[in-house]
């Protein structure tokens, strides 16, 4: 069973502020999801290549050609805050 501490840790990593009742609700839901994973574990996958994609596709690449970038103004247009040509972000706190 996943612990409240685990949920709090993951929430912190995802920058989610959870109230105690939300934390418990998330814990219960994650528990259910993990139980489902346990169910999948029961399937015999011996000899099956692990996969990360549902489509049987590999090696999708492009040539190294420059495409005109978006106009600087367009890219800055939605910035909540800026200084000249730069985005301005709130103080960085490394805690």
């Amino acid at each position, binding site marked *: 069973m996943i612990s409240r501490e685990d949920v709090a840790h993951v929430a912190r*990593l995802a920058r989610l502020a959870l109230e105690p009742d939300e934390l418990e609700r998330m814990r219960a839901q994650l528990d259910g999801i993990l139980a489902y994973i346990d169910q999948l574990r029961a399937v015999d996958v011996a000899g099956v290549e692990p996969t990360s994609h549902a489509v049987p596709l590999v090696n999708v690449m492009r040539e*190294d050609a420059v495409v005109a*970038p978006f106009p*600087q103004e367009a890219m800055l247009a939605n910035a909540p805050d800026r200084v000249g*040509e*730069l*985005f301005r*972000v709130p103080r960085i706190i490394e*805690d």
Partner: protein
Amino acid sequence: MSAPAQAGWEVVIGLEVHAQLRTRSKMFCGCPTAFGAAPNSQTCPVCQGMPGTLPVINRTAIEYAVRTALALDCRVNAGCRFARKHYYYPDMPKNFQISQYEEPLAEEGLLEIDIDGAARPIGIQRLHLEEDVGKLLHEGTLATAQASLVDFNRSGVPLMETVSKPDLRSPEEAAAYLRAFRAVLVYLGVCDGNMEEGSLRCDANVSLRPRGSAGLGTKVEIKNLNSFRNVQRALEYEVQRQAQALEAGERIVQETRLWDADRDVTRPMRSKEYAHDYRYFPEPDLVPLQIDRAWVDAIRRDLPELPRARRRRFVAQHGLPPYDAGVLTQSRALADYFEAAVRAFPQPKLVSNWIMSELLRALPGDDERAIAGAPVTPERLAGLLGLVQDGTISGRIAKDVFERMLRTGQDAPTIVAREGLTQVADEAALAAVVDRVLAQNPRAVADYRGGKTAAAKALVGQVMKATGGKANPGIVNRLLEEKLSRI
């Protein structure tokens, strides 16, 4: 550095080097990668990490990484995959960096470095590709800044990370590894190697263990090592710090420290352990790569001669001392310069001397662009040496001519003709100068006759001075000897 505090400890260092690949466009979008453009003028929704955009892999970035992997004798994995590395920092607005984790592009290689004249193989653990992140400018220092400014031009530039094994045993070896690694990248043409512009960046893992022990001590990661000098100085400081702590019976804390080049210290970064909990998972927007063997073989066939091989060949083929060969192969451009000059003037040691003393006095030998664009081309250097060889100018004048060639971009014959620098080989004219010098320096003459043969050198110097350095030294020597013996 061999401070007493370290005597009982063995230093264990591994380096992680990040190299920006010299592709025209970014790793996952077509934005240009040129350095120095106006902030945020080379971005698009993909490299600014906007929702709903899709990355597409740059084929050339893969090719460059394979090329590097082969040059480092790595195993290029048949299959590899990109992964998301999650963290929150304003240099990466989508809150994850596309990188590689469990299935990197290549593993298990080695890079040979030279330590005290002996080759030492340093293991390469892995080589993988990722995207670079944006650049932050803090208003003041990070600690006091009320806000930070972001330029995303660098965001999405292909970045190749190469992790060495913990095989390095001193700060000097770490610096030697970084130099050798940079030379390989520059020879391969995959990275410009410009550390000032951030094309090549280095993090180090360092720990100490009791000498003779096989286990590993607690390691500390040092970031922000952006020059060869910083790598060595930061590691020297850190080794000393750890040795003192261990000697005092303290435990080393596993942490990330930042090198402060202004204060010459490493200091801890204020980030807790969970910052390293990156929750990697396979990047769902990119399908796996299965690198075709035929492609790998083709890349292998096109590998250029690498620095070490070229250095050995310079010794074997051109008869150069190993020191010269090392200096001349520090960059591909310089080695090319040397070989082009030798083709035009086949006296390798003489050419080497001129490059090492004159060319490298003016230009940094590891700067590909500066050497390739040197105003004195290899052919012009050969032309200058030809003028010395046929006696048109003296070796001393030739050095002045070289300086002028560098300044003006003109060739040697033009400068020699314009400045009237042709060597004086007219015996009658030189004999008159020699007579005058002998008459003006009775003391030196007396010294010489008294057995101080060194006095003859001073007299030669006087003749050279009187002729503005243009006298043919062979003739001056002979004339002086004849006249002195007759006095």
